C-alpha cells in the first residue's frame, strides 16, 4: 500500500528532477528521460500490476508537468512498460549493453509514437527534429540507462542486502498472463 501511496510523490520528484537536470545541462534543449529509464527498469524488475500502475502514474505525472496532451505519455509509458516486461522474459536483462540498447530502442519508440501522434492528430510535421532532438535524446537515454540501473542495483543491495531477482525472469519460461 505504501508503494502505491508513495508512487505519485516519487513520480513528481523524478519528473521535476529530470527537467531540472535537463535545464542545467542542456538549457532545456534536450531532456534526459530518467522517467523512461525508470519505466524500463520497472518492466525488467516489477510484476505486471505494480509496474503498469507505476508506468501509468509516472506517465500521467509527466503529462501533467511536462506534456501538453494529457494521456499521451501515460499511454506510451504503459506500452513501453509492457514491451520491457515481456522482453525481460526472453532477453538477458542483466547485461549492460542490452540495457543501453533496449533503453535506446524504447526512447526511439516513444519518440516515433509522439511524432506519429502529432502528425496524425494535429498534422504537425516534426520529422525534421529526429536527427537534432529525438536521436540525441534517445542516445542520451541509452547511455544513461546503465548508470541508472547500476545505481538502482546498489540501492537494492543497500535496502535489501541483495539485488531483487524474480524467479520468473530466467529467460526460459513461457510468458504467462498470471504474473
Amino acid at each position, binding site marked *: 500500500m505504501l508503494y502505491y501511496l508513495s508512487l*505519485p510523490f516519487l513520480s513528481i520528484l523524478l*519528473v*521535476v528532477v529530470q527537467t531540472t537536470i535537463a535545464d542545467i545541462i542542456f538549457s532545456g534543449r534536450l531532456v534526459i528521460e530518467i522517467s523512461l529509464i525508470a519505466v524500463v527498469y520497472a518492466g525488467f524488475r516489477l510484476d505486471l500490476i505494480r509496474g503498469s500502475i507505476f508506468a501509468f502514474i509516472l506517465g500521467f505525472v509527466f503529462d501533467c508537468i511536462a506534456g501538453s*496532451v*494529457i*494521456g499521451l505519455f501515460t499511454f506510451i509509458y504503459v506500452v513501453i512498460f509492457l514491451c520491457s516486461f515481456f522482453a525481460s522474459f526472453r532477453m538477458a536483462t542483466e547485461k549492460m549493453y542490452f540495457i543501453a540498447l533496449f533503453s535506446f530502442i524504447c526512447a526511439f519508440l516513444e519518440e516515433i509514437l509522439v511524432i506519429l501522434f502529432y502528425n496524425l492528430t494535429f498534422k504537425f510535421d516534426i520529422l525534421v527534429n529526429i536527427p537534432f532532438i529525438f536521436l540525441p535524446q534517445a542516445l542520451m537515454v541509452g547511455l544513461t540507462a546503465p548508470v541508472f540501473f547500476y545505481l538502482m542495483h546498489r540501492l537494492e543491495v543497500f535496502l535489501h542486502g541483495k539485488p531483487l531477482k524474480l524467479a520468473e525472469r530466467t529467460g526460459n519460461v513461457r510468458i504467462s498472463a498470471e504474473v
Partner: protein
Amino acid sequence: MFFLRNYKTVIFVAVLLIIALVMLSYSVKYDTGGGFFRKIVLEATAPVQKVLSISVKSVSDAWLRYIFLVGLEEENKNLNKKINEIKAELVLYQEGYLEAQRLSKLLALRDDYNYRFISARVIGSEQAALSKTILINKGTAHGLKIGMPVMATPGLIGRLIDVSWHVSKVLLLIDENNNIGAILQRTRTQGIVSGAGSRGCILKYIYKNQDVKEGDSVISSGMGGIFPKGLLIGKVSYVLKQDAGLFLKINVAPFVDFTKLEEVLVLASEEPGSK
C-alpha cells in the same frame, strides 16, 4: 468468472491502457487538461520544484561565483603582470630621465672647462679595504692614457692608473694611495689631498697658523702636472688644531658621491686654442 480470475492482470493492464487512451482522446477532443488530478499534480509539483530550484540556484550561484573568482584570480594575475611590465617600463624611462640629467650636468661640466673630455660609463667598482678604484668602459682605443684625470659632476674623482684597449681603471680620490696637489679656494693655501678611504680625504701640510674653516672649498692646485688647476675636489668637513705637530688635521669631504658614479668624463687634454 473463471476467465476474469485467470486473466485479471491482463484485464487490469488493458483497462489502464484504455483509460490512458480515453484521457488522450478526451484531451485532444476537448482540449482540456487532466482536470482535478492535473491540478493536484501541479500543486504538488510547485513546492518540489521550488525547493529544487532554490538548491540548484544556490549550487549554481556558488559555482558561478567560484568560476568568477577563478576568472578574477586570472584577471588579477594578468593585471599584476601588466603592472610589473609597466613598472619595468617606468623604471627604464626614469633611468633615461636620470641619465639625461646626469649627462646634461656632465655637459655643463665640459663647458666649464676648456678641455677635451672623453665620456665613459662606469662598468665596475673595486671598493676593497685598501683600494678604491672603478672600471670604465673606455681605453687606449678611445685615446685614454695612464694618469689622465677623471671627473664627474661636479669635480674631480681620480685618475687613470691602468688602461687597456677598451677598459680603464680609475684610482679614486679616496684611495689611500692617491695624493693630489690642492689649494684652499678661499685662502689660496696649498697642501696635499690624500685619500682616507671611507672617511673621504685628508688635506695635509697646512700649517697651524693658517686660516682654515669648515666648508672651505678645496680645488686642485695644478702642481705635479697630472691634474689641471682649478678642479673641484671637496670641501673642508673638519679642522683640528693639534697641540703636537706643525700642521692642522683637516678632513675633506669630496663633492662626488663615489657610490653613485655611473658616467664619468676623462680629461684627455687641453683643447687647442684654449689658454
